[in-house]
Every structure is written in structure tokens, then in C-alpha cells.
């Protein structure tokens, strides 16, 4: 190995640092193996042993490829290729023999940093990236400037990166953004945490354990009450006894909405969830981006939301929705799987026979939930094949999906058209940012029943069991021991404030850094006064900005090469001679400084001391060994003060 061992350690440290954040999501055997490979390399370097044979590495690598295939069932896609890249890089360390291999490692390390952004793009990730880059550039400098001490390399690396920051900003702001993707993405390219288009027992309670932000909302005007914040997501019609699904529409009737009450105008910043639906308050009327309002009042886009999305929407909080619904749709809202849940059917039939009118049946069902011994819990017990019966007459412990599901079942059994609506309920106000945060833990399911004259009416059976859930969120509705996400639990006021501040910071970060897309770019450039935001104009401005900065850098960087201290000394002396020359004492060409000083001192006896002193200092600076840098300053001051 002809590379110095300190350089090898540096490279290993780079690889370790870029791979470390991946440990969170890599299969554990990959993390362990990569660490072992790096350790092996460090051991060989330390003991000056030969690197392992290529065939051995090849065989090990082949085994790993098979391992990846077994873990991911593919070699492509985000996770599998990242894993492969990390393993390859770790293997590469065991055959770093020359400068080229070392350079390759540096490039690979840079690439691995990018792959980390698939998983996280937080402020912390950005800071970590900067630290990693500093290390990488420092090690890189070692390749081509091995005579520099470590401290000097670190300093130079920091300077180089800092010089690049303004240029990077110009590029970041002005580089024409293209809306991706450029090619088809593997399915796992985006995280898809969030609501799904089906609902079965346990699906929402599982989601409620996540702190992840679903979206953030800024209200333009008075925000609605917490109990009115129902963020509408997928509407589910079809029940097979276990799972609720959207099903197929039997009518293409357009949605009709008569407004009864106040409207709300708000802006949502939606986190990517890889699904087509957008969340709006019950019931949406308009939206600022291209999207369609379906017959059951869902806002749906054609393309999945795979990047953070901002939109402005308008909703009616009091409404009459589809008062004259298509009978075929109403029929759909009555379908039940045959032969299941006989006891629930019986209960519903009982209510139907006993009570006059649909409203009374609805109230009876809610009253039933309230009166009987029902419990609201995140960890409901498992249910058998007659799920609704088991829940209503057996376990009686459930989360919102259990209540919504059994309520709709009861309604349909009683002949009242009903459907399940999933989405989010509530939100947490952040007073620093002035917006609401809706998290995955706010996921919710409720019901809608269709009543004559009134259309679809929202009924939330969960509110009957745990009113606090709807009034102030999940935390209030749960006993302390419940397995709630860490952040959702009440903290000390200080922690709570810190949490809100951090979230406000993250919000700004998301707004200005992460969601800087073609749209935001356009908005920013217009606000900055660019008259016509065209591709050419942006490219032109970008080039101009870069050229300007590089020009400034050039001036600054080459400045210190032109200063010559010996010249400065000479200039000062010549200035001193000119001053004397004005009084008629000109220095002859043959005259050395000492002779000239003697002559000048005789001619100007009152300045003799100054003349001798200046000359002595000049000679010391000009001809002496290792002149004191301060001496030049002194000479400058003395020449400036010299008067005749």
C-alpha cells in the first residue's frame, strides 16, 4: 500500500460518516457487515498487512448481492440500490491501493450523502451534511497536498466550502427548477406514511402512533372551532365484513352543496403521501391547484402527491350536501355483506321498528354507544369473523375505526344510507408560526348518513364515547398509560414551547428550502423584481451572478500575491527621498542611502535625527535578515510624519 495510513483512516472515517445515518433503515446485517469491512481495513492498515485478494472480495460481494436480493427482492429501487452502494463502498476500501482508488472513494462518499436525502431532509440532516463535507474535503486535500498539516487542510477545506456557499445560493435560487420525476420511479421512492384507501380494524390506531406531520394549515381569517376541523380524506362505501373500501361509483352526478353557515379559507402545505387525494375541511368548494371534486366531496388530483404540495382551499363549514342524491348511490350506501353480524342487524331492526324516523335511529345508536360500557383505546383486542357483533356485544374496546365501522353497519342495517369517511380531525396550533399542524396521530374515521331534506350529515360516533377526542385531540381522550407517540403526550410548558419553536423553524425550512419548486421559484423571483421569469432570463441572471461572484473572488484571492513587502519598503524610501528632493536635496544616482543620509542631515540639521532614523530603518528592512513585520508599519508612520 503506497498511500499513507493517515489517509486511509481519513477515507474510512469519511465512509463511516456518510453511511452512519443509513444505519436507521438498512437491514441490520448490512450495517454490521459494512462496519466489519471498515474495521478490517483499519486493522490491515494499522498492522501494515497486505490487502485481501480480489477473488475473496468478489466472492463476499456476490454473497452480499444475494443477501440484498433476499432482503429486498430486487437490486433496483431506492432501498436496494442504496444498500448496494453502501456495501460496494465498504468493499472498495479493502482495495484502495492508489490515488485513483482513493479519489473514487471520495466520489462514492459524496454520492452516498445524496442517498441519505431520500430518507431525511431535516435541518439536522443539512448540518450533518456540512460537517461530512468538511471532513471529505479535508481528506481530499490530503490526496493532493500531503505536505499540509492537518490543521491547515481543515482550514483550507473550510475556506473552500465557505467560498462556495454564496455561489451555491445563487444556483439554488436561480437554477431553473424542473418538476420531477424525469423517469418512472420505483415504488419505494417515496415514503407513504399516511392514510390508505382502505380501512380495517387497527389501521388507524396504528397510524395514530406516528408523530409524523401530515400537513400544516394556515387559516386566512378566523380558524374554525376544533370540533369543526374534520379534514376530509377517502370516503369508503364498500364493506366486505372486515375492510372498508371506496368501491365503484354508480352515478356520475356532480356534487351539490348549499351553504348554510360560515365559510373558511385556508392554505395547506401537504407532506408527500404518494396518494392522489388532498385534504380539505368538510365540505370543500374550491381549490387553487388543478384537482377534481368527486361526487362524494373528495378533492383528488390526477398524479400522486410525491413532493410537498401547497394549495389554497375554500370550504363550507355548514352545508347541505347532495340533498337529492341519486337513488342508485343511496342503494350503494345500504349494501351490507350477507349473513354476517346477525346480532347487530337484529339490534338495528329493533330500533327501526321501535323508533319513528331516521334521526331517532341515529340518536339511539349514539345513545347506545354512550350509555353502554364502551371504551376508547389505542390497543383494541382482536376481533373474530363477525367483527361488528364481536365489537358491539363482546370486547367493546375500540378506536375510531371500530366505532365508525360499526355505526355505519348499524345504520345500513336500519335502512339509513351511510358511509365511512377517513381523514384527520383537529390540529395543533403553533403560535410562533401561526399555523396548525396536523399529524398522523390525528388520523380519524367518522360516518356520514343521508337524511331526507338534509343530505349527507356528518356523525362522529367517537365523539359520543370520547368527546374530548374531538374537542381537544387524542391526548385528552386517552388515559395516561396509553401508548401514545412521545410528542403527543403533554409535556412541561417549556418543552412544549421548544417543540413548537422547532416545528416553526422546520416549517420555514420546509417552505423555503425543501419545497422550493418551480412554483415557489417563480413566486420568489417575481417578488425579487424579476419582470419576466423565463428560462433564458433565469439562466442569464444565474450566469451573471456567478460571474460576478467569481470575479470578486478572483480579485480577492489574487490580491495577496501582488503585495510585495520589499516593494513597499522601497516605495516608502522613495517617498522619503522625494520629500527631501523638494527642498533641493536630491539623491544622486551613485549615492547609497547612508551617504545620502549624511549629506541630507548636514543640509537639514534640525531634521538630522529623523533622517538618520528613517534611513537606518530602511536599510534594516531592505537589507537586514528576517525583518520584523511591525517595522514596516513604523517606517510608514515615520515617513508620513516626516516634514521639512
Amino acid at each position, binding site marked *: 500500500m503506497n498511500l499513507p495510513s493517515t489517509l486511509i483512516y481519513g477515507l474510512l472515517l469519511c465512509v463511516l460518516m456518510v453511511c452512519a445515518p443509513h444505519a436507521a433503515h438498512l437491514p441490520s446485517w448490512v450495517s454490521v457487515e459494512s462496519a466489519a469491512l471498515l474495521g478490517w481495513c483499519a486493522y490491515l492498515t494499522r498492522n501494515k498487512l497486505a490487502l485481501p485478494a480480489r477473488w475473496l472480495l468478489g466472492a463476499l460481494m456476490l454473497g452480499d448481492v444475494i443477501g440484498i436480493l433476499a432482503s429486498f427482492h430486487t437490486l433496483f429501487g431506492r432501498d436496494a440500490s442504496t444498500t448496494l452502494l453502501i456495501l460496494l463502498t465498504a468493499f472498495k476500501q479493502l482495495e484502495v491501493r492508489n490515488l485513483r482508488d482513493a479519489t473514487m472513494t471520495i466520489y462514492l462518499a*459524496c454520492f452516498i450523502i445524496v442517498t441519505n436525502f431520500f430518507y431525511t431532509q431535516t435541518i439536522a440532516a443539512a448540518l450533518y451534511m456540512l460537517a461530512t463535507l468538511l471532513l471529505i474535503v479535508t481528506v481530499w486535500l490530503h490526496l493532493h497536498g500531503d*505536505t499540509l498539516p492537518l490543521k491547515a487542510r481543515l482550514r483550507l477545506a473550510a475556506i473552500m466550502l465557505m467560498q462556495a456557499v454564496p455561489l451555491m445560493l445563487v444556483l439554488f435560487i436561480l437554477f431553473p427548477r*424542473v418538476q420531477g*420525476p424525469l423517469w418512472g420511479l420505483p415504488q419505494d421512492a417515496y415514503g407513504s406514511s399516511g392514510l390508505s384507501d382502505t380501512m380495517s380494524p387497527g389501521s388507524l390506531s396504528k397510524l395514530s402512533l406516528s408523530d409524523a406531520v401530515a400537513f400544516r394549515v394556515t387559516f386566512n381569517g378566523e380558524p374554525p372551532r376544533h370540533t369543526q376541523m374534520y379534514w376530509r380524506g377517502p370516503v369508503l362505501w364498500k364493506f366486505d365484513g372486515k375492510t372498508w373500501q371506496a368501491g365503484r361509483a354508480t352515478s356520475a352526478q356532480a356534487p351539490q352543496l348549499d351553504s348554510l353557515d360560515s365559510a373558511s379559507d385556508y392554505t395547506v402545505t401537504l407532506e408527500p403521501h404518494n396518494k392522489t387525494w388532498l385534504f380539505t375541511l368538510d365540505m370543500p368548494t374550491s381549490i387553487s391547484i388543478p384537482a377534481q371534486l368527486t361526487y362524494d366531496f373528495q378533492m383528488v388530483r390526477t398524479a400522486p402527491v410525491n413532493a410537498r404540495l401547497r394549495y389554497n382551499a375554500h370550504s363550507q363549514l355548514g352545508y347541505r350536501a347532495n340533498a337529492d342524491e341519486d337513488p342508485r348511490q343511496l342503494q350503494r350506501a345500504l349494501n351490507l355483506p350477507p349473513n354476517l353480524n346477525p346480532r347487530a342487524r337484529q339490534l338495528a331492526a329493533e330500533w327501526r321498528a321501535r323508533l319513528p324516523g331516521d334521526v331517532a335511529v341515529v340518536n339511539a345508536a349514539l345513545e347506545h354507544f354512550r350509555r353502554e360500557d364502551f371504551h376508547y383505546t389505542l390497543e383494541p383486542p382482536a376481533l373474530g369473523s363477525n367483527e361488528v357483533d364481536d365489537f358491539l356485544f363482546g370486547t367493546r374496546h375500540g378506536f375510531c375505526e371500530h366505532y365508525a365501522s360499526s355505526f355505519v353497519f348499524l345504520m345500513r342495517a336500519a335502512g339509513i344510507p351511510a358511509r365511512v369517511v377517513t381523514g384527520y380531525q383537529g390540529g395543533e396550533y403553533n403560535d410562533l408560526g401561526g399555523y396548525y399542524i396536523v399529524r398522523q396521530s390525528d388520523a380519524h374515521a367518522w360516518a356520514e348518513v343521508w337524511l331526507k331534506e338534509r343530505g349527507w350529515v356528518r356523525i362522529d360516533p367517537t365523539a359520543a364515547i370520547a368527546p374530548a377526542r374531538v374537542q381537544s385531540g387524542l391526548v385528552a381522550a386517552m388515559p395516561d398509560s396509553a401508548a401514545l407517540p412521545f410528542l403527543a403526550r403533554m409535556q412541561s410548558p417549556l418543552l412544549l414551547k421548544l417543540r413548537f419553536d422547532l416545528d416553526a423553524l422546520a416549517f420555514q425550512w420546509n417552505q423555503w428550502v425543501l419545497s422550493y419548486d418551480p412554483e415557489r421559484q417563480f413566486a420568489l423571483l417575481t417578488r425579487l423584481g424579476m419582470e419576466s421569469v423565463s428560462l433564458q432570463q433565469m439562466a442569464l441572471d444565474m450566469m451573471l451572478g456567478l460571474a460576478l461572484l467569481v470575479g470578486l473572488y478572483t480579485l480577492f484571492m489574487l490580491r495577496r500575491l501582488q503585495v510585495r513587502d520589499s516593494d513597499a519598503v522601497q516605495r516608502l524610501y522613495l517617498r522619503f527621498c522625494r520629500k527631501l528632493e523638494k527642498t533641493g536635496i536630491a539623491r544622486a544616482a551613485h549615492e547609497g542611502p547612508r551617504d545620502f543620509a549624511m549629506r541630507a542631515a548636514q543640509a537639514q540639521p534640525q531634521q538630522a535625527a529623523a533622517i538618520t532614523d528613517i534611513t537606518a530603518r530602511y536599510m534594516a528592512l531592505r537589507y537586514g535578515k528576517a525583518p520584523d513585520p511591525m517595522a514596516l508599519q513604523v517606517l510608514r508612520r515615520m515617513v508620513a510624519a516626516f516634514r521639512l
Partner: protein
Amino acid sequence: MLTALRQQFRTWLFRPQIESGTVTLNQRRIFIVPTRSGLGFAGVLVLMLLGDINYNLSLGYVLTFLLGTTAVMTMLHTFRNMVRLEVRAGRADAVFAGETAQFVFHVHNAGALPRYRLILHDKNQRRVMFDISAQQSVEVKLPLPAARRGWQHAGRLTLYTEFPLGLFHAWSYFEFDTRCLVYPKPATSLPLPASSGQNGTGKFNVTGDEDFSGLRGYVAGDTPQRIAWKALAREQGLQVKQFNTQQGQILWLDLYLAPAPDTEHRLAILARWVLDAEAAGLQYGLRLPCVELPPDHGIAQREECLRALALFGMSDSTLAAAET
């Protein structure tokens, strides 16, 4: 046609000319292109950018732009590492053929920034690497093998640097009028020829050196053995003891006396004799077909003789070309 144009372009761009004195590396003389690994890095950046666009990775954009601009800025760093260096050719001490000529160059860095990893090499890739601290000079010795006797030129040299990240290659050409005298390679040991005044035993008494006749001032080339150290100790300056030399004990080294078939071998034998005669402390003169060096003794005489041998038969035009 194309080759001619290319040659013309190169001539225009690089302006090959032999220079003397101090050469300051300015922007006119420094060329800079990306290296192979620089191009490779550009490829990596393009891949990264495609990934960023495709996956909407905002931080990826930040990283890509940061790396990209750092890389571009290293062009300035590389250029700065070289610009305004002052290069001056130094003396190259004469060597025998087969040895290595050390061409000395003085590189001065007048600026306030240190320069790193500068490499000086000739067209056969014989190289030397050096750093220069701020406001310092270094003496760079470029070892070039001396194959044949005569004047050896360093030829066109390249000074280059790839500091700091090896992404850009900045270089400058210069051809100095510096040259190194290469003596003929001395033949293997051979007895000295007979003295002109005696029979050829090859043995001489050196009594002539023992007759002290006085002191004279030191001249460069005087052998240190004859310096009057006592006089120096008396602070009388450097003086050299003079001895009477005796007539008839003079060794004439003649080209025709050398027992060899051709001139080059004869010169080699003469070179050996010059060294041996000097070592033996003899008075010796050199007689070549058009040069005759009167007998003398000392370093100066030795150099003079070897120089005559080195340049023997070299046409005046070659010499003249070498002088200019």
C-alpha cells in the same frame, strides 16, 4: 495540412522560445484544463443533479451545487498556486557522462501565500516535487541523466500543479538557456603515459612541489591543499603557497598517445589521465588537434582540460547555438 495548422496553433499558444533571466509566471504563461478525475467528478455531479431533479431532493440540490461550485473554485485555487512565481535557472555543475546532471532552478514566491505540490518535469517525465512557503525561495534540483559528453540542455520543462483537489491541471512551459557541461566518461584505470622529459616509467618524483617560493593571492580554482592556512590565521587573507616547478617533469597528455581505436575512447582515456595526473599532483598539459593547454596543476587546470575534452570536436555552430 492539419498537422501544420496544429503546430502553428501550438507555436502561437505556447510560444516556445529559449529564455534567460527570471521568468514570472503570469496568466499569459499558465494554462489550465480539467484533469481526468476532474471530468469524472463532473460526471458524478451530473448524475447527482439528475437524481435531485427526479426525486425532488432540495437538500440534494444544495449538496450538488455546493460540491460543484467548490470544484469550480478549485480552478482559481490551482491557478493561484502557481501564478506569480518567479523562476530562474541556476548553475548546473559539470558532470561526467553517465552521471546525473543536477539542473538547479531557483523558484521564488514573493506572495504572502504558501504554494504546495508544484512539480517540475522534463519531457521524459523525470520530475521533482516541491513546496514553497510564503515569501521564500527554493532551490529545485532536477536530476537529468547525462548520457553524452558536451553541452547538455534541460530542454523544455513543464511546471505544473493540481493542488488542491486534483480537479484541474495548471501548467507552464519554459525553456531556459541553462546548460550543463558533460565531461567524457573516464576510461577504466590505465597507466599514465611517459613524461616528455623522462622515460616512460610513469613514475615521477614530485620534488618540484616542495620548493617553496612565496605566497600569492588566492584565485578561484586553487587547490585547497596549497592555501596558506597560517597566513589566513594571521588575518592576511586567503593566500596560496607557490612552489618552484622543475622543468622536464611535465606530462603532456596527447590525444594521439591514447591507446584506443576511435576518438571517443581516446577522449575517455584522456579524461582518466587528467584525473589521475591531478590526483598524483603532477604538472600536466593537454594537447588536442586544435587546442593546446599549457601544463599546469590544480582544480582550474583539471576543469580546463576536462572542458576541452568535453567540447572536443563539437562544431562551432553547435556551440554557438548553445551559447545563444
